[in-house]
């Protein structure tokens, strides 16, 4: 009976560990993917970032790479931020406790594209 769980733990240890020290889905980006037509072009999407915490506190949302703070909430346990995605690459966001600077949750908006070949278009036939 327990051997199944032991095997699962050995195969996927991070799945168990991450649940222990991080609240699942504390920060959600919807949609979590932006699709551009061609590789190399900026992708545009209206992203809604939603977060939930079990306790009231002071929290901030920032760009995980540049550390640019987008919004902070005082004495809240949930929040929503509308983000205008405009980028040539994926962007990660993180929610952190502004009192301790500890990162609570991380999410990413992935960039995808349809056409790899950037030289493909030609004109239509005449008739």
């Amino acid at each position, binding site marked *: 009976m327990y051997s199944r769980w032991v095997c699962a733990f050995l195969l996927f240890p991070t799945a168990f560990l991450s649940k222990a020290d991080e609240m699942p889905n504390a920060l959600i980006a919807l949609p979590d*993917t932006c699709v551009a037509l061609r590789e190399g*072009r900026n992708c545009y999407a209206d992203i809604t970032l939603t977060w939930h915490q079990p306790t009231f506190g002071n929290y901030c949302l920032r760009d995980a790479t540049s550390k640019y703070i987008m919004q902070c909430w005082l004495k809240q346990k949930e929040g929503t931020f509308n983000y205008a995605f405009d980028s040539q690459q994926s962007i990660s966001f993180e929610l952190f406790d502004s009192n301790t600077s500890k990162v609570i949750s991380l999410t990413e908006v992935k960039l995808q*594209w349809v056409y790899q*070949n*950037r*030289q493909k*278009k030609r004109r239509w036939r005449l008739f």
Partner: protein
Amino acid sequence: MKNALLNYTFFIITLLCMSIFSTSSMASNRYYADNTLEPTQGFAWDWSAGVGYHIGDSYLIGVDSYDHGMLVDLTLALSYENFYLDFDHNQLSGGLVVGYSLIDKFDWGLDILGTNVQSGFNDKGLGLYNDGIIDELRGIKTRNYDFDTGLRLTRRFENSQISFEYLHDISGTHNGWIVNTFFSHILPWRNWEFRTGVGLSAYSSDFTNYYFGIDSSEATSDRPIYRTNASSSMMFEFHAEYPINQDWVFLAGWLTTWFSNEIDESPIITRRYQHQAKVGLRYVF
């Protein structure tokens, strides 16, 4: 004999150009190009399959003035170093383009290319929808697809480019020449891509008479013998694409072509213009 000599001369000139001007740069070399993008290095390819709804008012006499239906759309685009190949199978863009970039410097490009210019047709029309024999076209000879090779000179701007082409039929279909000029512009707006183009073309008398002339064996009381001179056409097109997700693309397009008197006055031509429109979905592999 004269045509064979022309073809031979053209082939020699082309080989000379290839040997003298061949470069390894890989900027854009198509009719449409977003020259703000960094060109793909090495081997790159895209292929897609889709289905679309097409409507068009055919220029051929007897064909339904609002011909419409669902059509399969297959495309393949390959690039490797200076070589490129586009296969696009739908009635707005159908055909094959094989090209090689000879010169690509200072926003100018010179390409050698081979392509089909004119779709073939017979007494069943263009054969898009498998219609039966059209009474008004009954008895005409089959006009075959041509295959033309030649040179294209292109001047690139950021999202625009202008091209000049000289092509000559090497398939023996009409043994004529075609001169094309084409100005195109790509406008990305958010995740949409809009493309517009305006073109002006001239066709030799051999080309015009092969496709639109009527010889004595085809002539009837309603379809007199028709011989004419070189002809021309002008076209405008608009195309839009939008990525639904990583694999699916929505597309819509409009194409209008106006023909000169030499084509319009042919007994098998019903009007001097043609409009075509299409909406569809494409799966990109």
